[in-house]
């Protein structure tokens, strides 16, 4: 089972790399170099804040866009191109292994991508701040939270990919990411409602993935430490949410006729 999972995951990673997904790094590198040179001109006080905000937001958005655009095709593209016939038809591969392998492969791609971006980001921070301090450890936490975002959005894109077309899947995935970014506000609105509406709104607010809790960019940009409790809670939340979404993906895919 492990052998099959790693084979599928590695093939997914290899496909993404050979399809030149990592070329986005060139764009990221250009952006980060240009911004670090530019912020140096503005002010000694805020150049670091601007660079951290810009760099981490770029790492987050680049990965989210890749996760959605590859994630929505993970299953549907295989059905459309009929490549999964040769995997599922005559190989002892269970459908859940296929889904999980594809998921792990894309997460691996995104992680490698994020690590390479992080190297450039830290180099830029060092250039602007003339070195790294102990407080910069919170930047690592922010990047870890971005990786958790990737995991969550990959699982959601994969879920949509099991039953919908790529266009609708991308709309759903972007929409849910946008809504999830305002999850805290949604919960606030729900508290203001009354009666049955309140219950329904609260349910809906807790159902959408809470991307807001994973965004600590402005906090770390202002040198505010991230509480260890939040790291633990976010990790557990993403693990549970991802497991639920993957289970739903497998449930749908297991019942699907591959015509």
């Amino acid at each position: 089972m492990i052998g099959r999972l790693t084979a599928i995951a590695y093939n997914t990673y290899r496909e993404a790399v050979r399809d030149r997904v990592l070329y986005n790094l060139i764009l990221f590198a250009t952006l980060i170099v240009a911004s670090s040179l530019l912020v140096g001109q503005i002010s000694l006080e805020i150049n670091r804040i601007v660079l951290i905000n810009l760099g981490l937001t770029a790492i987050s958005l680049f990965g989210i866009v890749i996760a959605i655009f590859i994630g929505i095709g993970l299953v549907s593209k295989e059905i459309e191109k009929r490549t999964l016939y040769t995997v599922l038809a005559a190989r002892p591969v269970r459908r859940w292994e296929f889904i999980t392998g594809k998921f792990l492969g894309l997460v691996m791609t995104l992680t490698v991508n994020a690590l390479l971006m992080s190297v450039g980001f830290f180099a830029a921070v060092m250039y602007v701040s003339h070195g790294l301090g102990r407080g910069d450890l919170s930047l690592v936490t922010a990047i870890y939270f971005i990786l958790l975002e990737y995991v969550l959005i990959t699982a959601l894109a994969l879920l949509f990919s099991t039953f919908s077309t790529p266009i609708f899947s991308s709309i759903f995935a972007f929409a849910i990411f946008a809504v999830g970014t305002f999850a805290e506000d949604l919960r606030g609105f729900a508290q203001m409602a009354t009666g049955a509406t309140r219950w329904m709104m609260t349910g809906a607010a807790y159902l959408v993935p809470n991307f807001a809790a994973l965004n600590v960019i402005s906090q770390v940009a202002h040198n505010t430490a991230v509480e260890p409790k939040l790291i633990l809670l976010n990790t557990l939340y993403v693990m549970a949410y991802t497991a639920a979404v993957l289970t739903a993906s497998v449930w749908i895919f297991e019942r699907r006729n591959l015509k």
Partner: protein
Amino acid sequence: MRESEGHAIVPSVGSRFDNVRKDHFSYLPRHKPSAIILTKQMAAIEIQGLEKSYRTGFFGNKLKQGLKPLTLSVEEGEVFGCLGPNGAGKTTTLKLLLGLVFPSGGTAKILGCDLDNINVKRYIGFLPEQPYFYDHLTPLELLDYYARLSGVDSRERKRKVNTALARVGMTDSGKTQLRKFSKGMLQRVGIAQAIVHDPKLLLLDEPMSGLDPIGRREVRDLVQELNEEGKTIFFSTHILSDAETVCDRVAVLNKGELKGVGVVADLLREVSGDVEVVWRGARAIPALSALGARCHATGDVVRGLLSERSLEAALAALRQNQAHLTSVTPVRATLEDYFLARIGDEKPNEVNA
């Protein structure tokens, strides 16, 4: 889904074939997982009333039968052809057997195991129609990936991959990305991936389609070669001459329904029965025409084509008219004749199966 990894495959009970089969299975120790030992007596594929309906229409309220209840048996060591026009249900049958689509009714067993037994797939090779592969890979990488998924031991993998590539004549192109390949080359890679793990049963969907005459000949030879090695081969095709050349038995499907099944020679006998009679003496023409013969005279030599049933009466008529009999030759029917006789008057099904 039955979890049976790490165990020898156990034939399910309840089938009328079980008494025969149980003797031929070997229950192997756990360190040698899921091994099957087949014998000559065992059916490689056993289909009992397998059927598939699809919901169509905007609201999914219409039911279309892609495959009507099908009962069929393919013996081990056979080359079995599944014939039919486009939309006949050939691909649906293969997809049902391979678990890509789920049956609406009926049962089937492959190598004595139920369809939901995932471990039996170690012993199956499949070539889809117009195969597409991960075109970012080279044939060597692709076959290695498939061999890995099929559970081929890492020590054996490289050798098996190279052997499979050599068998389809692709050794020199092993390191070229598949996106640069022609359709014929992809078909060869398709066959290589179907045999890379040395399966006992090969399911080939239109293996000769899209190939030039030389390619078709090579695939036919390979099918025969694999069969001589003891592999069972089940393939679908609408190219009747291919089926006639390589198949021991064929099944004819149309509109999702089995129209006939049997040894090729037996089936042809059903639609044959015509004889060509050649004689000298034009005087006998009216008498033979009266028996239904289609006569064509060239000078004094007459050729008459008539039903075998009328042969005795025709010979008597020739004697009566003092004609000189030159030859009586049975007319050999082709699978095309059989095909047209069975389904020629029916329009093909609209279901894309």
